[in-house]
């Protein structure tokens, strides 16, 4: 007679969320590639409103952040919180509601974006009915997550849970405040804030959505899965404590660096510069912690492609968290604002850090969930090189485009006239947009290989039942 299900970890919901995350990755990245193609061949919308660039772009960003990203974060959070607490999930039925509810909301939300239901506020485009649904599901996520922690059998709460927890709390706060609006119809609302005030609220939200979801949440993923994969303890516990609190405090202030030289108070901009620069320290501290944890684990690389991804993701994390503060400096921002350099920065983080750390985690996690070896290590290695090539090409093409734009827009000749017309400058960007399209195709092809690889790994397998191990009495609750 098998033990009751209560005695085993609830991993089926994890598996489902990983599957959804991979599907979203392929879908949302394909939309991204289509957008890149439209910038080279603008008639690719075939005169259809739902294929138009302006409507497709939020589908790409929301699909990646809320589809690919949140599904991965929710799944890995559920997986790791159980194991760091030595207790099965609290309220597993609620976890399933969050899992399927989230997919439904993002799918319907994505379709609503194509229909033109949008607030136009970046990463908060979904209109008010979806904002409410997201809030309810997010609270559910928090209940399952913190409920599991409250029931834990190990006294100390492991650091990965602090990051996931900070993500849940801060994203809830910024989402609710930024989404405040008065509804007009089901598909339209007007923001509570207007003009310059709306700008400051929006970028307090926008930057911290990146900070606590795309950075904080994925750091939670890294802090659990990296030591697990490398089979090594964390290099410095002390460093992780200091870095976490510095990170949580400092990130919040950096928002207005999206608004340099814009019509908001000067002191708000200056504060953002200073805090963005300070932010470099906790970010790099975390990166160093990760790299030093894994440096002695090289023998695993022969058989384990997952580790390759995580190691490289840390390098790109270092790049992105260095580039960000640098672009927050006013004299650099003068050139970079409104250009493709910002896009390049976003994607060095999104492709190099977020996608790669997730891919590494999935290559590690899925064989364990399936109780089988990874279907093909060779394919995973090929994926690694495609991901690296795609990311590098993307970054370099957008650096070139962005700096050119910034420089040419501001260029004044010897007699004090503008040197170039806007039209001519943008016409010269097409080669870079073409390169970026190729980069996207390369990265997408790697992602599709992974989807196939993971599918074949999971095909026909039975769910693996894992019991929480006994707890060392020294750490027992």
């Amino acid at each position: 007679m098998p033990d009751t299900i209560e005695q085993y970890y609830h991993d089926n919901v994890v598996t489902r969320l990983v599957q959804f995350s991979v599907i979203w990755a392929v879908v949302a990245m394909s939309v991204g590639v289509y957008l890149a193609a439209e910038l080279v061949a603008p008639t690719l919308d075939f005169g259809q409103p739902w294929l138009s660039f302006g409507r497709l772009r939020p589908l790409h960003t929301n699909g990646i952040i809320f589809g690919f990203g949140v599904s991965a974060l929710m799944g890995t959070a559920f997986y790791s919180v159980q194991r760091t607490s030595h207790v099965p999930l609290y309220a597993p039925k609620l976890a399933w509601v969050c899992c399927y509810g989230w997919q439904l909301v993002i799918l319907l939300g994505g379709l609503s974006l194509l229909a033109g239901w949008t607030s136009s506020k970046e990463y908060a485009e979904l209109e008010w009915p979806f904002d409410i649904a997201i809030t309810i599901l997010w609270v559910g996520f928090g209940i399952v997550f913190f409920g599991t922690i409250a029931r834990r059998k190990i006294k100390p709460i492991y650091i990965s849970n602090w990051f996931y927890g900070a993500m849940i709390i801060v994203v809830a706060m910024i989402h609710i405040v930024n989404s405040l609006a008065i509804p007009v119809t089901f598909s339209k609302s007007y923001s509570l804030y207007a003009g310059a005030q709306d700008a400051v609220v929006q970028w307090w939200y926008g930057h911290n959505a990146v900070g606590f979801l795309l950075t904080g949440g994925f750091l939670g993923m890294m802090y659990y899965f990296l030591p697990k994969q490398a089979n090594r303890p964390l290099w410095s516990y002390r460093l992780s404590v200091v870095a976490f609190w510095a990170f949580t405090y400092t990130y919040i202030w950096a928002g207005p660096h999206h608004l340099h030289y814009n019509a908001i108070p000067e002191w708000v901009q200056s504060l953002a510069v200073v805090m963005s620069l300070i932010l470099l320290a906790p970010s790099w501290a975390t990166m160093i912690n990760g790299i030093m944890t894994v440096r002695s684990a090289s023998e695993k690389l022969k058989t384990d492609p997952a580790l390759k991804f995580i190691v490289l993701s840390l390098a790109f994390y270092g790049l992105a968290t260095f580039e960000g503060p640098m672009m927050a400096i006013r004299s650099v921002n003068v050139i970079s604002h409104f250009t493709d350099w910002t896009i390049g920065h976003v994607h060095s983080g999104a492709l190099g850090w977020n996608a790669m750390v997730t891919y590494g985690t999935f290559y590690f996690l899925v064989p364990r969930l399936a109780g089988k070896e990874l279907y093909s290590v060779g394919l995973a290695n090929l994926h690694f090189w495609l991901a690296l090539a795609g990311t590098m090409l993307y970054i370099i093409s957008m650096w070139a485009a962005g700096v050119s734009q910034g420089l040419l827009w501001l260029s004044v000749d010897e007699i004090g006239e503008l040197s170039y017309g806007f039209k001519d400058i943008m016409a010269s960007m097409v080669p870079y947009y073409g390169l970026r399209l190729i980069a996207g195709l390369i990265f997408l092809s790697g992602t599709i290989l992974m989807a196939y690889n993971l599918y074949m790994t999971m095909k026909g397998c039975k769910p693996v039942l894992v019991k929480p191990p006994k707890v060392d009495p020294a750490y027992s609750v």
Partner: protein
Amino acid sequence: MLPSSSLTAISVGYFLALLFGFISTAFISRWMATTYGARSSLGLHFALITIVAAPLCVGSITHLFPDVFLNVLVLIPAMIWSMYLLYTGIPIALEITAEKGMLMASALVGWLLVASVSLLGISVGLWTLGIGPFLGV
């Protein structure tokens, strides 16, 4: 055609940036050597960096023809070749296993990315402060 003073300034600046890049990367590489158990002779690391960068340096002859497409056509494969030399060359030259070499190469890629973006940022910052092309800021 740019005025010759501008050309000289750009050429000298570019060369100094290259020098700085090579030397600093060699130092960083040697600094990383102890972490990965690699040989730590500075001359060896400098030689390794020179070989790794060779495809890019030779390929950059296409800068003589200021056409974006041509430069891209030559330099992208050159960069791929350089990356290949980095990942395969480190284990061979520094006498460590392929796996340790992979970790160290990734760390060096991290440094190179940060150095590149710093170069970008410093250039841009200098331009905005008035050193370089004439900008209406």
